[in-house]
């Protein structure tokens, strides 16, 4: 049997989505971003929305998301992606408009934009990568950093008297009338990846409905093994044991 005998359409078991290009990603090994990028590319491709998708990349590790998924993108100022998505969707209502944001971007500097875009019921999708740390700037405390968790700006562990509590912003979003679909997923196992993909697909389908019914919000509880200073395997373990307690997986709202 030669190589050519094997490389045949009917033998194909896995294929990278064509929208995800061949550029080498800058993400650390073990990072969740790459998996979520792939899921987004897959769903856009499966829904045939290559011509309709406009993504907003954040300030944070995913600042270069536009380098990896071959659709039109706008690069936001820190925290402003939901305001930008609002404008684009209002001006171009038949497009798929989504933001891709980290915890600092979405839940600290961009809290107002996040809450108001969702509260206005914008027909957009917010993909929220929550790894409880600022990865790009070198591992500082995030609004979602857990109590006791060590970062470079809380080197002795997050102290609530000094820094307050971890912010479960997704729970806040779920309270808003304007938010239609609010879910929390992860991508640390094959099963989790499948569920996360279903969630992203549902959110994108919502956003393509012609009638404005509200925002779709998908949190992906993620690891940052370099920021957490753990091996990818340990990071996954730490996430399931600690992060999932503060950020339980599942749908918070599905209208």
């Amino acid at each position, binding site marked *: 049997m030669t190589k050519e005998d094997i490389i045949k359409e009917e033998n194909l078991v896995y294929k990278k989505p064509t929208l995800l290009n061949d550029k080498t990603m800058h993400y650390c090994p073990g990072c969740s971003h790459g998996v979520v990028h792939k899921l987004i590319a897959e769903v856009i491709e499966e829904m045939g929305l290559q011509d309709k998708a*406009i993504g907003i990349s954040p300030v944070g590790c995913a600042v270069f998301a536009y380098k990896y998924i*071959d659709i039109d993108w706008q690069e936001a100022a820190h925290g402003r992606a939901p*305001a930008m998505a609002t404008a684009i969707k209002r001006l*171009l209502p038949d497009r798929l408009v989504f933001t891709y944001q980290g915890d600092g971007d979405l839940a600290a500097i961009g809290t107002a934009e996040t809450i108001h875009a969702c509260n206005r019921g914008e027909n957009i999708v917010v993909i929220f990568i929550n790894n409880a740390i600022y990865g790009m700037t070198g591992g500082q405390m995030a609004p979602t950093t857990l109590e006791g968790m060590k970062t470079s700006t809380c080197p002795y562990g997050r102290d609530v008297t000094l820094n307050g509590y971890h912010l479960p912003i997704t729970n806040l979003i779920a309270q808003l009338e304007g938010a239609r679909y609010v879910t929390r997923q992860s991508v640390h196992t094959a099963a989790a990846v499948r569920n996360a993909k279903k969630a992203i697909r549902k959110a994108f389908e919502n956003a393509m409905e012609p009638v404005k019914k509200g925002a779709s919000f998908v949190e992906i509880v993620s690891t940052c093994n370099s920021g957490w200073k753990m091996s990818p395997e340990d990071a996954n373990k730490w996430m399931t044991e600690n992060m999932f307690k503060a950020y339980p997986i599942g749908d918070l709202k599905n209208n």
Partner: protein
Amino acid sequence: MSEEVRLMKGNEALAEAAIRCGCDGYFGYPITPQSEVMETLMKLKPWETTGMVVLQAESEVASINMVYAGAGCGKRIMTSTSSPGFSLMQEGVSYIAGADIPALVVNVMRGGPGLGTIQPSQADYFQTVKGGGHGDYKQITLAPNSVQEMADFVGLGFDLAFKYNILCVILADGLIGQMMEKVVLPPYQPRRTEEEIRKQCPWATLGRTPDRDINVITSLELEPEPMERRNIALQAKYALIEKNEVRYDEFMTDDAEYLIMAFGSAARICQKAVEVSRKQGIKVGLLRPITLFPFPYNRIKEHLSHIKGILSVEYNAGQMVEDIRLAVEGKVKVEHFGRTGGIVPTPGEVVDALKNQIIK
């Protein structure tokens, strides 16, 4: 009646003109003394007629980023605000400059610093003309001096913005925003179709079509060399604008021995001051910059052969006067006269200042 003559506030005229100029979207946040702009738009409901989007944002920070995003789609997008709001917008203003995209921002200035006063001021000259946000950038700045110009500069502002892919600022003041005058509104111009936008703005993020590569609106460039190349290109664009787009207006300057320079509503007061001075036998003329960037440096230089001094009249502590001095290079006397805190000088005060500070 072929043309529509109306009695309107500057703010209202600006809003009407926006709809008529084929504006695609307005994103704003209320602030005195310009809230009539959004109020007028909301009352007129242009989304039911031209399809223009109007949205009240949660802050000026959000509204300028909505402008940035809409502009990134090649749309004709604007916002309006007043001084404290314009300060908040500086983030988005800098991003718009860095991403090379066209948009229109209106600042109906009030007195500062800080929360200041809601009364008229021109104290945001430096902020607008010298760049209030971070980075090396410029923006075309138009200074209207009448309700008519408030209406006319919307279309002009969009045209200039799209000619150069740059932010255009209409720098008005509370007096122009709040006063009512006769205005002839521009004729209706349809919004561009998406096909027209794709042609005019091939960089626009409207969704990738199979015939082109992806479009990305960004100002990010981590490598120093490409970043410097971007900056050099920006500076070349600004130089071209300085060459092509200087606009000014003059009143009784031909035989003038003295010049008064003023922009916006201050120029109206100064025109009266010129009329009064002329009656007293003083040969004075008015040079009013319409564009503050690009500034009419050369026009000032041309006057130096026949004038003895220039009085810069501004509702601030002396800002444009620095640009006049740059043009004059010490050759004649240049002084500033201004009131601050929302106080607008009267024509009589200007005449006195001309006598006391320049003629003596």
